[in-house]
């Protein structure tokens, strides 16, 4: 019969996180396990590699495993057919996979796009600043999708796109706050604030344009209701509607961006929402030019996200399947 307190049981308990009294013999083993865990967790799969793998996996889904056939003639015909299918798949699926970055909700490659985004976040999770930057980029992607869906009048896909944008925005806001708290770097905080403010402004414009479509009666009553519900359902992000966001608390003066593109520097003593009045654009048409706040200088840690403007700039809508 085994004694319950033999070393291996105690080690198991400690390694599994159960409360156990660690003696001098076990402490080095637990310390070693922690070192090993840290060393392993420091290794991350490159998002581009993941994207390449997914491309291959999704491409190979068209491959057909041939069943045994009775004659060589039939087998040859079958092989040619398989080759033709594989070639057709390679010609259609692979370029589409590469182009997953422009996929819209509802399209086959959209989950690939989300997965690649998630992997990008995972790859930079060791730096809160970079994570915030990635999350702002993701919010920008959601905004771009919403913009294109609005242009396409894809009424059924707009409500979930709004919800996704709001969730991405909430995540980005949280990430920016975490980054500011972790680094305490005012310059970086400003840079992130400016980037997020640009997305906020873009969202307000997009939602305003959407409201215009609702007012014009372009969309059906049920679609209008669904869109209204999506805007009102949690998470509530009033900043996305008005184009202003609560600045991230910093020791310096936060920068607030209005939809007109002007920047107001608040006094450093306040961390409240800006006192400036923000007016949404009065026209129901999409503005031909949207002034995007300039990126803050001195931000060397933006993870290559140099397109601080809206991702929809210059993007042409694609035809939905």
């Amino acid at each position: 019969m085994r004694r319950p307190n033999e070393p291996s049981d105690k080690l198991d308990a400690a390694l599994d996180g159960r409360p156990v009294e660690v003696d001098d013999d076990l402490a080095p083993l637990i310390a070693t396990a922690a070192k090993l865990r840290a060393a392993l967790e420091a290794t991350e799969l490159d998002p581009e590699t993941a994207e390449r793998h997914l491309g291959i996996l999704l491409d190979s889904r068209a491959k057909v495993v041939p069943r045994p056939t009775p004659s060589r003639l039939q087998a040859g015909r079958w092989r040619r057919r398989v080759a033709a299918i594989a070639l057709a798949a390679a010609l259609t699926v692979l370029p589409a996979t590469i182009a997953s970055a422009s996929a819209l909700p509802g399209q086959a490659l959209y989950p690939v796009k989300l997965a690649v985004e998630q992997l990008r976040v995972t790859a930079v999770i060791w730096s809160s600043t970079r994570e915030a930057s990635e999350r702002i980029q993701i919010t920008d992607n959601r905004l771009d999708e919403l913009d294109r869906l609005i242009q396409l009048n894809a009424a059924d896909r707009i409500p979930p796109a709004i919800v996704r944008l709001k969730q991405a925005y909430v995540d980005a806001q949280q990430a920016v706050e975490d980054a500011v708290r972790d680094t305490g770097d005012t310059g970086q905080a400003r840079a992130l604030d400016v980037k997020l403010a640009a997305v906020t402004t873009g969202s307000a414009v997009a939602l305003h344009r959407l409201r215009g479509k609702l007012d014009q009666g372009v969309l059906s009553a049920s679609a209008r209701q669904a869109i209204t519900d999506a805007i009102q359902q949690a998470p509530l992000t009033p900043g996305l509607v008005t184009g202003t966001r609560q600045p991230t608390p910093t020791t310096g003066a936060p920068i607030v961006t209005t939809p007109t593109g002007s920047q107001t520097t608040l006094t450093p003593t306040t961390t409240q929402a800006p006192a400036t009045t923000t007016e949404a654009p009065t026209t129901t048409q999409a503005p031909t030019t949207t002034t995007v706040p300039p990126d803050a200088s001195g931000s060397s840690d933006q993870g290559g996200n140099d397109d601080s403007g809206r991702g929809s700039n210059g993007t042409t809508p694609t035809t939905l399947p």
Partner: protein
Amino acid sequence: MLGTGEKQEGVSRVGLTAADLAGARRREPAAITRVYTAYAPFVFRFFLAAVDDHPTAEDLTGDVFKSAIEGLPRFCGPVEALGGWLFRIARHDLSDFRRRQARSPCITPLDNTLDEAALAAGADDPEALAIERIEGDRVLAALRQLSTEQREVLLLWMAAGLTAPEVAAVVGKTTGAVKALRHRGLAGLARVLGVTNDTSFPEPLSRSSEPAGLTRQVEQG
């Protein structure tokens, strides 16, 4: 890690559902993507720690998923067993790789060093990152000095996040034997790394059910 958190019926520890598994069997892109995203970081860590070469570990990772997706219709287990099945493929591929490697000369790639330098250059604190990397490399180098069995058990447990019974199923040993190998492996690693009794006690070693790198699952499209 895949963690040892609360198990939910019909849901794997990485959040995959039976529907995901069924979808992947039917080669649905969304389901394949979810399976890949859920397990790829762990498979990659497993290979990288074993072969110490990024491109090789990446290629091996890709191969595992290619084999897995193609062989998924033959996988009859529940979604909870998918991780163990994937790592059986990974272990098999690693053995194949070792055999091939034994027949050809080993070349240490320069690309890794260059990648590390580039990464360090863009880091918040390049010095801290470099030190962290050096320490990580030292630990992984020490791991490679263990016996194959010990190393394999430690990697399946730590890198793959499998439980002792799951590791036992993958390597074909009893759970008790796996625990003993894990114990001896850690002791060997501690010796090589020079970790002694007076080592300051590390952070708690609880294996979270929401592991780093997988804290946010892929949004559903």
